[in-house]
């Protein structure tokens, strides 16, 4: 007898013919493992919590709130710039550089924000410069820099390198903005 098949919504993990074979397996094969799966779920839950606490401890230890300084990057929407790389200078020193994978660019295009850099800064005036490279309109190499001078207070400071499409002249626009 020919049997119907089901499509389980998921990414194609295996080669597809295997996927189909898997979908047509007999029932009841996995009964004995339900509790193991639950155990693994519990473990995952604990690991997430531990990871969170370790993450927070790491920040508290390395980047105390009074000196913490972070730079994020966003890409909205990236039609005029195929982002390749970003370099970040703080007070003349290169503190971060990143080459982007296709997957990372997609994540940025979908609204994600990358924490490009986190470090410590003294209170007072500082200068931040971001250098953005990629392929711009008409498939031409594109390079642009943006600079911001800001005053670091005693609270955490966060800046955003914002890459936006400027529809007025179909060009990408790079700016650095400070978050409150």
């Amino acid at each position, binding site marked *: *007898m*020919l*049997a*119907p*098949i*089901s*499509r*389980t*919504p*998921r*990414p194609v*993990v*295996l*080669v*597809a*013919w*295997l*996927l*189909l*074979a*898997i979908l047509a*397996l*007999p*029932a*009841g*094969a*996995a*009964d004995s*493992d*339900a509790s*193991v*799966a639950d155990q*693994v*779920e519990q*473990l*995952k*839950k*604990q*690991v997430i*919590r*531990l*990871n*969170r606490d*370790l*993450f927070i*401890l790491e920040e*508290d*230890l390395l980047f105390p709130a009074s000196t913490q300084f972070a730079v*994020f990057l*966003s890409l*909205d929407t990236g039609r005029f710039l195929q982002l390749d790389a970003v370099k970040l200078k703080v007070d003349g020193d290169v503190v971060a550089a990143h080459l982007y994978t296709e997957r*990372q660019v*997609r*994540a*940025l295009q*979908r*609204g*994600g*924000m990358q924490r490009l850099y986190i470090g410590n800064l003294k209170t007072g005036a500082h200068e931040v410069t971001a250098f953005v490279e990629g392929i711009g309109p008409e498939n031409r190499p594109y390079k642009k820099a943006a600079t911001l001078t800001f005053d670091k207070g005693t609270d955490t400071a966060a800046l955003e390198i914002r890459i936006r499409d400027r529809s007025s002249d179909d060009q990408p626009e790079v700016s650095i903005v400070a*978050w409150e």
Partner: protein
Amino acid sequence: MRAWRPGNARRCLRWLVCGALGAVTVGAQAQPAPPTRAADLRYGEVLYEYHQGEAFRALTLLSVAASRGGIQGHGDHPALVEGGLLLSYGMVNEAGRRFERLLSDEAPGVGVTPEVRNRAWFYLGKVQYLSGEPERAHASLQRVDSDRLAAGYPGLFQEWCYLRAELARRHPALGGVAEARRLADRLPQASLWRVYLEYNLALDDRNRGDGAGVESRLAALLPLLENGREADPDARERQALAARVRLSLSRMMTAERRFDDALAVLSALPQVGPLSDQGLYEYAVAAAQAGQHSRAFAALSALASRPGDSPWLQPVPYARAYLLEQTRQPRAALEAYRSAAAHYQEELARLASVRASLSETSILSGLTLERDSSGVLTDAYGRLKAHPDQTGLVALLATERFQRVLAQWQELRILARDLTRWQDKLETFDIMLATRKQQRQRRAAETRAALDALQADTWAERHRAFAQDIDAARASGDAAFFMSTRQKQLARRLASVASLLATLPDDARTTTQRRKYQRLRAYFEWQLADQYGINRWAAEKPLRELDAAMVEFAQRRQRVEALLATDDESDRLAARLDQLRERLSGLQAQLGQALAVSRAELIAQVDAELAGWLERNRAYLLASRHAQARLADALLMSGQPEGGQP
């Protein structure tokens, strides 16, 4: 092959994981609107990880955000994203609870927005569908506003149609075939969801005995599946489904003894793969049963020339000999049986050796792992993208149970690796804290030296004595004590004049001068009395200021002393470090145990598969030898001994 049933899914954690990613991905991909900016940096970070499929990291960041005041400006979306991420990360129970919690507030306008609620109903329905709870899934999916879903999330809408149609198709009480048909018609013609539904509906009709038009309906699916672009993310799945459709068509044609048609259909199958192997084998058997021996030989020859270890290749040497025997070619058959026996004998030795050296490493070496420039490719949740290339693993890897254990094992390995990284970091933190402590001690010593140089105690004593003197003078009304500098100079001059007058002869001039002195003295004392308040205020004001300064100095000194005595911040960090190290160690132990169980299960499954493979091999070996003996006897009895002339 048997049908997948929703009841299976309750036990199929892995597929829920996969399903979740599908849900999340489809949800993300289906958004028609351009990406909206994150109103909260933490949420932006979460989305960055989420859209890269880094569920674990995204969940961690969400948890960090929650412990630091939550995400602002995005309403309930983070909760929905968290539910999807939990689902993606294989935490089905937790995901189900999140969606239920998200939907628990039924009051309109309160809590969850209609848009989020709509999607949450969809995801909850999907969890229930995958968990094998058709009635609950149906109820949840029915609460989805399909028009709203179609407008905002066309990908989710298609999936919603599919899930509802499948429920209806399998459960007449939930709508039956007519409802499934209606829902399938709402999907675009080329949608993969629709193709699955069309395939299933066609096969349902055939199995119910209503076979008219099924073949053409199935054939109509092929162009939809095979004319796609290579770059299409569903390309592999379409290709696999096309193979499945071709296999079904060939079976139908073979059953009707339309061997040419069946072969034509099968000829378009991919050269390598269990479906094409299976198709060819079934075709060979059917052709042999129908007396179409040349076709059967052709199919078996094609199979024999294929590489790999597909289960459908194992019986080929025996089947070929058997076919020769059936076609009355006893000498060739005898030779073929002999050759088959030798083949099976070799296979026995090889399989026994593989089985004996079975280990985690050897299992991994039997899988080709997809890689890219950044290393071994995993799916969004860390599972290996694996292709089998070792004996027995082809069929085994296609089993749900093995896939689940493999995925679980891989997940545990990733968790263990993450924990090891943290352990390394904690060691670094230890060094960091120790260094800080040393630096602090050095600075403390410097600070103490600076404090000593200030002679703080002497100054405090002098202040105390001065205050006491003032108090005493005030109590006794000692105006002289509070004299100003000028008054003190005058008093000294007056005293000097008085001493001088005392030494002068008592003449008229002296008497006049003494009277003058008395007047001056009286005026001075009057002035002193008159200005007593002012003088006292002038003395007490700086004293009060000094008091305040001394208090501030004392407090500061106390703080410095306290800071020098204890290092609360570092102690707190060290305590947290210790506590986390303890938790980390406990979790590592648990993970180690789970990993051992998982590893043992993995090896046991491969071993069982190899044992089955060996058993079948022995059976074929035995059958080949029996047939060989039988044929040799028959040839001898018929006067055509083996190796002799007829």
